[in-house]
């Protein structure tokens, strides 16, 4: 049996002014806590925006007359390419594994999520190592087909788009797949009753209903693309972040770099607001049912095509690059392997796990406050708190560090000294600083799953609980949290994976001795020893599989 209800148009929560209106919950504390979180997230962004006080006309004039037009065009091309790519691959594969049946479906169902564990910059250098003109593969091709033979160049616009699509499609795949699964059977059966074919019900029923999830996934992928510096510099593809780093490292002008970065943010805000306007106010409340007894059984050419599409993506995004890393690691880096790797793995796991808990908690706080009282203030707080994801990592890290050092010098050190403790720094260089940094950076990642799991709770459930005499606390802990558990868990695991892969903030803010697998990759690549970097990279991928596999098991039963 399946039980679904769809209420489109104005959602009850929004139209009635939030749970607080009829639940008699005190909102003040929640609002205050949400504002504090937003403020912490805003601090580094404010530091970045303050750079506009510094005049940098010469840098702008130079960039504007030389490289900037090309960079803007490149960035546009990259966004369109990656956006379309992740949408087609993510939604297409998500649909196939969620609603169809073909050989290998059970394997691909979870295997297609594994590329989430591979950092984009690692995938980039592995792909170049495999496919560039001087790679063993192409050398062999020239032996077979003559010296004039060459594949289309991997170091090209198409190549960088390919790499980023392969790195970022899992966000869309994961969210779309869960959305399709939770739509369940009856929705599509209803469509069939009305005479829709499988394709028609995909386009006219399943896709529109999955749209919020797909949009959230694509937004994450595009923000990653905008903020990325690692993968594009491996490909030497110049984007807007290139201008930021050129201003900072090449022209020694951090202020101009920060100004460019704040423009990037503005761009993101405009994009996010536009998407939300376009989506309108439609909301869907579903009671998820994952029982999908009747899949579309694919036959012959179609089932072969489905299986090959899945296999191709899996091989390119995971099997080949990880295989290449293993070969490199065994060939050039085994001498680097020692007991310290246990420490690196432990540090990576501890940081990832703690940051996941902290960040998910922040996301829960914001999402619940929004449900309590959806007003402009909280909407603004959510917006601000989830922006950090679109800033290039180093810029955000510097913003966080500068604001923490300011806090230290202005407030904490005087306060602690008056209490008789020694001089600081108390915050900068501490574990708390690093965790807050992760929180600011990855709140956007955690907010999506938490928010969408709130979306699935029917407001009538809260009303029923209240009418049965449940207290406010019970409504949160005993009614809401159990229903949100899946979303919280997914959010935490996603942050976990992201933190493990994160490099710039970890490098700048880690306490002494807290080296992780990602910082090991940096040590090797800073002087171009890509093959030696394969050892920490492959270890990172393998360790990263732990949260990814947990995530897969979680979302296989999205309740």
């Amino acid at each position, binding site marked *: 049996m399946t039980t679904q209800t769809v209420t489109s148009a104005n959602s009850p929560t929004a139209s009635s002014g939030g749970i607080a209106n009829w639940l008699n919950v005190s909102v003040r504390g929640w609002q205050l806590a949400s504002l504090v979180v937003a403020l912490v997230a805003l601090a580094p962004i404010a530091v970045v925006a303050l750079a506009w006080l510094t005049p940098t006309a010469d840098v702008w004039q130079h960039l504007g007359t030389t490289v900037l037009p090309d960079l803007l065009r490149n960035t546009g091309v990259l966004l369109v390419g990656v956006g379309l790519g992740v949408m087609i691959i993510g939604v297409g594969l998500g649909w196939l594994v969620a609603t169809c049946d073909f050989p290998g479906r059970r394997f691909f169902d979870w295997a297609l999520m594994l590329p989430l564990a591979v950092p984009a910059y690692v995938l980039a250098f592995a792909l170049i190592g495999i496919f560039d003109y001087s790679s063993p593969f192409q050398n062999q091709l020239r032996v077979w087909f003559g010296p004039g033979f060459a594949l289309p160049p991997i170091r090209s616009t198409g190549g960088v788009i390919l790499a980023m699509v392969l790195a970022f499609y899992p966000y869309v795949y994961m969210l779309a797949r869960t959305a399709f699964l939770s739509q369940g059977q009856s929705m599509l059966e209803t469509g069939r009753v009305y005479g829709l074919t499988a394709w028609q019900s995909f386009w006219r029923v399943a896709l529109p209903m999955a749209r919020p999830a797909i949009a959230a996934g694509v937004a994450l992928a595009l923000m990653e693309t905008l903020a990325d510096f690692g993968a594009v510099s491996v490909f030497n593809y110049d984007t807007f972040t290139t201008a930021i780093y*050129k201003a900072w*490292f090449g022209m020694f002008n951090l202020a101009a770099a920060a100004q460019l970065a704040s423009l990037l943010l503005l761009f993101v805000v405009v994009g996010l607001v536009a998407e939300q306007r376009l989506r309108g106010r439609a909301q869907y409340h579903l009671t998820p049912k994952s029982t999908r007894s009747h899949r579309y059984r694919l036959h012959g050419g179609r089932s072969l095509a489905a299986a090959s599409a899945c296999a191709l993506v899996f091989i390119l995004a995971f099997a080949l690059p990880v295989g290449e890393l293993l070969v490199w690691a065994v060939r050039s880096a085994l001498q680097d392997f020692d007991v310290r790797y246990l420490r690196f793995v432990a540090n990576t796991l501890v940081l990832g796990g703690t940051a996941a808990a*902290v960040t998910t908690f922040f996301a829960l706080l914001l999402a619940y406050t929004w449900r309590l009282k959806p007003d402009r203030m909280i909407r603004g707080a959510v917006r601000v708190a989830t922006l950090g994801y679109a800033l290039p990592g180093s810029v955000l890290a510097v913003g966080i*560090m500068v604001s923490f050092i300011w806090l230290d010098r202005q407030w904490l050190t005087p306060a602690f000294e008056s209490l008789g403790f020694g001089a600081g720094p108390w915050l900068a260089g501490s574990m*708390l600083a690093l965790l807050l940094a992760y929180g600011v950076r990855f709140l956007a990642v955690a907010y999506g799953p938490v928010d969408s799991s709130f979306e699935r709770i029917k407001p009538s459930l809260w009303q029923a609980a209240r009418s049965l005499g449940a207290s406010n606390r019970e409504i949160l802990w005993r009614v809401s949290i159990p229903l949100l558990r899946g979303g919280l868990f997914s959010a935490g695991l996603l942050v976990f994976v992201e933190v493990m892969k994160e490099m710039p903030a970890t490098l*700048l803010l880690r306490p*002494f001795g807290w080296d992780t697998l990602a910082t090991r990759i940096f040590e090797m690549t800073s*002087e171009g020893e890509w093959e030696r970097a394969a050892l920490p990279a492959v270890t990172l991928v393998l360790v990263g599989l732990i949260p990814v596999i947990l995530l897969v098991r979680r979302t296989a039963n999205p309740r």
Partner: protein
Amino acid sequence: MKIWAIVQFAGMGLLTFSVPASAADEVVVYSARNEQLIRPLFEAYTRETGVKIRFITDKEGPLLVRLKAEGSSTPADMFITVDAGNLWLAAKEGVLAKVDSPVLMQNIPAHLRDPGQQWFGLSVRARTIVYHTGRVKPAELSTYEALGDPKWKGRLCLRTSKKVYNQSLVAMMIARQGETRTEEVVRRWVANLATDVFSSDDQVMEAILAGQCDAGIVNTYYYGRLVKKQPRAAIALFWPNQKTGGVHVNVSGAGITMHAKHKVAAQKLLEWLSSPSAQNLFADGNLEFPVNPTVAPAASVAAWGKFRQDQTNLAEAGRRQVQAVKLMDRAGYR
């Protein structure tokens, strides 16, 4: 709830990790030279003297911002980085202190340290020409500038201009021959490129070996690593500009921070790093040349032959970096 337990754990972590321990016998280092190159040195120093060294590694840009933002409360005593441009910038930003040390003045040649005595080169790398031994005769090569000659059309490979090594190379060319002449040379290089610029020196050499091009410009230690792995590779170093300015060299180096808490200990460490007992350990791990002229390079490095270095003070690389970056942008060198 579990989440609360974790939050509490994190809170305790804050207290444990933030308390700054400041022992007397210790030096705190911020380093942009990577961990596997500096750790052996620091371990040797601790064995020899008992002085403990705590260090953190990162890219030079963020580290420098951190030093500046921390100001007088910085825990760092020493800043280590690669490339003279970065050292010059650190001095200009006011985070490095002037060091009066006859030992350093004697151990380090004048053009490889700051005239204002705020930073000191500790190892030397040359940025020089590599060529395919099958397709190029050494006699065809002469200077960096000559790689702009039309006979190299479609035969040249270069790394991206975004790498500071190329920015320093061009900055030093500007210092020697002026902006107009240098821009002309860079334009000619770009016109001769066989393929889009690469993101690493290794890729430049791989492309030469694979037949995509015949010559390129790389740092010596990348070449050293390549021939260590493939001793029979058909690629060789060439020392250009021997009759004119000399080969462009650069350094990795260090300075003592303005607000160092262990200034004396840091200066002792810096002097030790320039001394014969540390120089081979510092340079050989990365196949670089010792900065101290009394110390012989590793055998595999010495095998590349002697050459004349550009004697222009490396502070020029920093002073003219912005000019160089702009020039390369104008010339279309990505």
